[in-house]
C-alpha cells in the first residue's frame, strides 16, 4: 500500500457523491471542449477558405464593427490589379441570409470570371452563364440543406434564382454556401459597384514585395483600410473573435463553478472524516501529508471529471456538427492541444477547489478531531 491508495480509496467511499461531482465537472469541461473546439474550428474553416482560394492578401475596410466588413468601392480592385507584383484582384461581396425555410446561410457574390472560382470542382450542372442574370451555384452541403438540385429555383430576398450547378470545395464553409456572380449579389443587397472584401493574388516570385507594396499604398492613400493575409483575416474575423471570446468566458465560468463544486464535495468529505483525520494525525501523519492527501483527492476527482468532460464534449461537438444550424458552416478543431488544455483546466480546478479543504484538514488538532462526533 502507498499513500496514493489512501487518497484513492477515499474517493470510492461515497460513489454516488463522487459520480455526481464527476458529472458536474464533466459538464463544465465538456462546455469548454465543445466551445473551444468550435471556435478554433471556425477560425480554421475560414483560414482554409482563404488558402483554398489562393488569396495572398485580403483588403477590408477596417472601420466596420459589424460581423461582416463594411462595403467599399469595387474600383479599388482595378488600382491594385495594375501593380506589377499582383497577378489578379477579385472583389467579393458576402452576407448572411435566410433562404426559403432554411436557417441563415452564407451567400457570396464573386467577380466572375476570376481566380476565386479556380479551386471549386463542379459535381453537377454548369457554372452560371456570363451576362445571364439570376443564376447561381450551390455548395453540395447547401444543396442538401435546401433540398435543391440542378435546374431548381431558389428564392433569395425578392428574387428567384436558377441553380445551374452544384460544386464541391476544399473549404467546408464554401460547401455550405451559395455563390453567384458579383453583380447579382450587388443587386440583391442593393450595393451596386461595391464589395466588402478585395482578394489579391501575387505573382509567385514577387509575393513578399507585392504584399509590402500594397500595404504601403493603403497606408499612404487609403486610411481605414486593412490588408491581411489568410491567417490574419481568419483570426481577426469578428465572428471568430466572438467565438473565441465566448469560449474563453465559458472556460472561466466552468472553472469557477467547477472549483466551487469540487470545494463543496471535498469540504463535505473533510467534515465527515474529521475523526478519521484526527486518527491519522494521532498515529503520526504530518499535517502536510494530510493536506497532500486531500489535495490529491481533489485533483484526482477533477482530472477524472476532465476526462469525462472531454468524452462528453467530443460527443456533443460531433452531434452539433450534424445539426442543420452548423452543418457546412464549421467543423470542430480537435487535437491533442485541446485535450491538454481541458486537462489543465481540470487540474487547476482541482487545485483551486481543494486548497481550502486541504488547509482546513491540515489545521485540525488531533485531540479535538478525535472527540468529534
Amino acid at each position, binding site marked *: *500500500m*502507498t*499513500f496514493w*491508495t*489512501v487518497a484513492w*480509496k*477515499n474517493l*470510492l*467511499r461515497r460513489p454516488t457523491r463522487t459520480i455526481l461531482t464527476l458529472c458536474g465537472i464533466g459538464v463544465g469541461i465538456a462546455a469548454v471542449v465543445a466551445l473551444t473546439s468550435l471556435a478554433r474550428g471556425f477560425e480554421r474553416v475560414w483560414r482554409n477558405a482563404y488558402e483554398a482560394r489562393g488569396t495572398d492578401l485580403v483588403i477590408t475596410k477596417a472601420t466596420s464593427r459589424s460581423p461582416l466588413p463594411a462595403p467599399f468601392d469595387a474600383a479599388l480592385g482595378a488600382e491594385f490589379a495594375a501593380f506589377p507584383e499582383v497577378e489578379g484582384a477579385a472583389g467579393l461581396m458576402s452576407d448572411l441570409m435566410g433562404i426559403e425555410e432554411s436557417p441563415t446561410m452564407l451567400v457570396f457574390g464573386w467577380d466572375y470570371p476570376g481566380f476565386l472560382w479556380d479551386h471549386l470542382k463542379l459535381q453537377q450542372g454548369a457554372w452560371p452563364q456570363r451576362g445571364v442574370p439570376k443564376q447561381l451555384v450551390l455548395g453540395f452541403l447547401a444543396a442538401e440543406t435546401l433540398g435543391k438540385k440542378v435546374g431548381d429555383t431558389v428564392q433569395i430576398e425578392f428574387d428567384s434564382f436558377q441553380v445551374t450547378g452544384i460544386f464541391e470545395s476544399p473549404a467546408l464553409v464554401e460547401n455550405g454556401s451559395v455563390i453567384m456572380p458579383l453583380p447579382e449579389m450587388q443587386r440583391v443587397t442593393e450595393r451596386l459597384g461595391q464589395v466588402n472584401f478585395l482578394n489579391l493574388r501575387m505573382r509567385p516570385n514577387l509575393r513578399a514585395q507585392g504584399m509590402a507594396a500594397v500595404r504601403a499604398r493603403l497606408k499612404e492613400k487609403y486610411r481605414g483600410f486593412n490588408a491581411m493575409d489568410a491567417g490574419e483575416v481568419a483570426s481577426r474575423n469578428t465572428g471568430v473573435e466572438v467565438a473565441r471570446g465566448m469560449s474563453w468566458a465559458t472556460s472561466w465560468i466552468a472553472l469557477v463553478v467547477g472549483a466551487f463544486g469540487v470545494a463543496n464535495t471535498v469540504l463535505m468529505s473533510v467534515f465527515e472524516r474529521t*475523526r*478519521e483525520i484526527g*486518527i*491519522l*494525525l*494521532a*498515529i*503520526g*501523519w*504530518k*499535517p502536510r*501529508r494530510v493536506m497532500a492527501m486531500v489535495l490529491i483527492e481533489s485533483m484526482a476527482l477533477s482530472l477524472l471529471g476532465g476526462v469525462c468532460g472531454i468524452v462528453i464534449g467530443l460527443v456533443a461537438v460531433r452531434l452539433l456538427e450534424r445539426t442543420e444550424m452548423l452543418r457546412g458552416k464549421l467543423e470542430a478543431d480537435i487535437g491533442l492541444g485541446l485535450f491538454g488544455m481541458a486537462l489543465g483546466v481540470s487540474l487547476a480546478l482541482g487545485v483551486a477547489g481543494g486548497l481550502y479543504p486541504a488547509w482546513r484538514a491540515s489545521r485540525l*488538532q*488531533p*485531540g479535538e478531531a*478525535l472527540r468529534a462526533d
Partner: protein
Amino acid sequence: MVEHASARTQPSGETSGPKTLVTVRGVEREFDGGQVRALRGVDLDIEEGETLAVMGPSGCGKSTLLQILGALERPTRGEVCFGGQALSGIRDLSGFRAREIGFIFQSFHLIPTLTALENVQVPMLECGGTCKSRRKRAEGLLASVGLEGRLNHRPSHLSGGERQRVAVARSLANGPRLLLADEPTGNLDSANAVRIMDLLLEAHRRHGTALVLVTHDPLVANQAGRTVRMLDGQVDFDSRLEGRRL
C-alpha cells in the same frame, strides 16, 4: 505471539534498573477558556517498560491525561518530558508520535475504507521503508495477533475483537516505546477483552514497551503492574507506594 518492529528497549526484566520514560510535572489542562478544568496539577513518572492502569470515574481527566502523554493535547500549564526531552520543545510532534507512541482506542478508530493490512501500514508511511517491507512487517504484526487469515478484510467485515486486534497491530507498527490504550476492552465481550489484554501484555513483556491503559474494569487494572486512580483532575492514589510490580 506479538511481533515488534524494532528492539530498541530491552524487556523490563533484563534491564539493570528502571529508567524514567515519561515525567509529568504540574500538568493542568483547561477547556472553554478555563471554564472546564480537566487536569488540576498532575505529577506522574512512568518508567520504561512499566505497565500502568489509570482508573477513576467518568470526567476525572483520565483520557485527557492519556492525550497529553501522547502529545495529542498540549497542557495549559506544566510540562511533560519523554526520554528526558520536554514535549514543548519538540517541533515535529507528528514524527515523535509516529516513532515513539502507539495508540489504541476504545472505538478501534480504524480507517473504514482500508483493509486490515492497509490499516496497519498507515503509520509506517511516515517512517519510510519500501512498499514491500511495509507490507511484510504488517503481515507479521497481523499474524502475531492471530489475523493472518483476515488481511484483506475491511473493518466492517471484522468482529469487534478482530478490529481491536488490528488496532493493536497498528499501534506496534513503528516499534513505539510507549503504548497508550484508552479503554481498549471497553467495547468487547469478556473473551475478547482477555485476548486483547494478553496481546498488550505480551507486547510489553517481549519488547519492554511501556503500557499505559485507561480502564474502568478492575480485572483489567489488576493485570497492570501499577494503578493510578484519578479524581477531579488529580492523582488521588498511586499503587507505586505499595511497591507492586508485574
